[in-house]
């Protein structure tokens, strides 16, 4: 069966809330029913049919074509299936997702993968600030699943992360892994200042160093740990670059000693 395809007619006049477009919500619906779903965010009601051309198909595989940065909350709360986005997306892509695959062939806005619980998100372009992070008022960020960003990420990637794995192949902004509670953040490219700022537990791997390291991280020496080899095997299918990075002995910095200090930053030693 062919996938269900939504093609954007033109750049929408307002931001759209795409959260009703999920495999389990569209399953069994006709083209007409799908076209009637409201996605507007202003007082003027906007339906999917107003802005998209709908081609029905297997709702377990949704394709969104011609997407743009005004499409917020794509894959919000997704539980299973697959969403493939051809183009950029707005904020909160994949927020609160518990399962399935979300693939974005473009850039993502802020709070992509916010409070992700399970499943897999791949962003082939860049991601905005607070990748995986919580919205104001939430106690914890990402708590499961896997996020791969091929491009750069904004500041505070992995903010308040609690569990799960984030791999960033490009550059990362300032305060990557800020306030981390636990989890694994692999940053293959160079990062901005103060990675791991106020992190309590968790693991940050820096492939190309940071603009400035916090003095509250303490050098524990260079080690070749089995845990990192297992991590390398785990990420190998998704990111050969991250896997290569983890197969060498790495310098371990413990921190952030300004708080609990049970986190760690692994630094690839310069050769």
């Amino acid at each position, binding site marked *: 069966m062919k996938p269900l395809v939504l093609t954007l007619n033109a750049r929408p006049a307002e931001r759209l809330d795409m959260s009703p477009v999920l495999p389990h919500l569209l399953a069994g619906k006709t083209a007409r029913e799908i076209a009637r779903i409201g996605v507007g965010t202003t007082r003027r009601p906007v339906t999917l049919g107003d802005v998209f051309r709908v081609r029905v198909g297997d709702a377990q595989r949704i394709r969104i074509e011609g997407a743009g940065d005004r499409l917020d909350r794509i894959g919000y709360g997704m539980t299973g299936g697959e969403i493939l986005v051809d183009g950029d997306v707005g904020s909160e892509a994949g927020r609160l997702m518990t399962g399935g695959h979300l693939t974005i062939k473009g850039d993502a806005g802020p709070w992509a993968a916010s409070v992700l619980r399970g499943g897999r998100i791949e962003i082939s372009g860049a991601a905005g600030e607070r990748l995986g992070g919580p919205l104001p008022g939430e106690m914890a960020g990402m708590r*499961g699943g896997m996020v791969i960003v091929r491009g750069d990420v904004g500041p505070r990637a992995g903010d308040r992360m609690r*569990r*799960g*794995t984030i791999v960033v192949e490009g550059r990362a902004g300032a305060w990557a892994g800020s306030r981390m509670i*636990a989890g*694994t953040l692999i940053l293959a490219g160079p990062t901005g200042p103060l990675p791991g700022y106020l992190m309590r*537990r968790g*693991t940050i791997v820096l492939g190309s160093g940071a603009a400035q390291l916090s003095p509250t991280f303490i050098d524990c020496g260079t*080690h*070749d*740990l*089995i*845990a990192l*080899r*297992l*991590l390398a*095997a*785990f990420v190998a299918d998704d990111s050969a670059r991250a896997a290569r990075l983890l197969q060498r002995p790495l310098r371990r910095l413990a921190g952030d000693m300004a708080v609990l200090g*049970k986190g*760690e930053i692994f630094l690839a030693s310069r050769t």
Partner: protein
Amino acid sequence: MRALIVNGVRIDDTFAEAFGMRATALIITADSARWARQAAITMTGFGTSVIGCGCEAGIDRELTAKQTPDGRPGVRVLLFAVSTGELQKQLAGRVSQCVLTSPGSACYAGLDGEERLKLGNALRYFGDGWQISKRFGGKHYWRIPVLDGEFLCEATTGLTKSAVGGGNLLIMGESARTTLAAAEAVVKAIGRVPDVVMPFPGGIARSGSKVGSKYKTVRASTNDAYCPTLKGAVKSALDADVGSVLEIVIDGLTAEAVGAAMAAGIAAIVKLGPKRGALRIGAGNYGGKLGPHHFHLKDLLP
């Protein structure tokens, strides 16, 4: 007892009576096969019989670097006990004293399954607050800082309630030398069968036992019917030409595995023949009323 003769070896028309057990498996790895083996041997030591050791344990097989989770050489160990509680106690005690302490070791689940036993979850407190939990790829690991770096241990391992313990073969030969040769051939053959262990020293038990004794406090005593030196004194099961008997005890994760192991053992004895090996093969049972699993030798012939 009517005997069947294959290649000159007499095979008793009898059966081995085996019992249901709880079992688990784990994979121990180290920087070299030598140290993986060392950790496994230490951990499975004093694990010959549930009567006195709390569990029966042994090495199932050695694993190459490609077969282990972390790409280092390893060993798969099986542990059998009569209850889940005892198995958990033995597992935690043995891994903490024998694997955690072994240089460069790491420890993983060797068995899948819904029901789990605590592995790293029972050991993590050794880290005194510095232990690190890591979850990825659907697995949960504990990293415990130790003197040579880190001990990595999977949080749980699988438990099976359909394991079988007490599969056995009684190997009867003309002399101690030929009987041992036959027993060694059996151990080598069964070593290639997956999911089974032979918990006794080198896989061989020379002090096969019967249930009960003339002394009230002794639960198991020597199997006098098979002791060659008592041939004339007791109601012996031995023929005039048998001068030595050795027993192989087999525990397996499934009844099929135990059956396959016994068949492999019988085939090895038959192949060796009566001159260089055993004259006769028997098996131990309690009349068939105690154990649910009966392995008839005649069904296992090569």
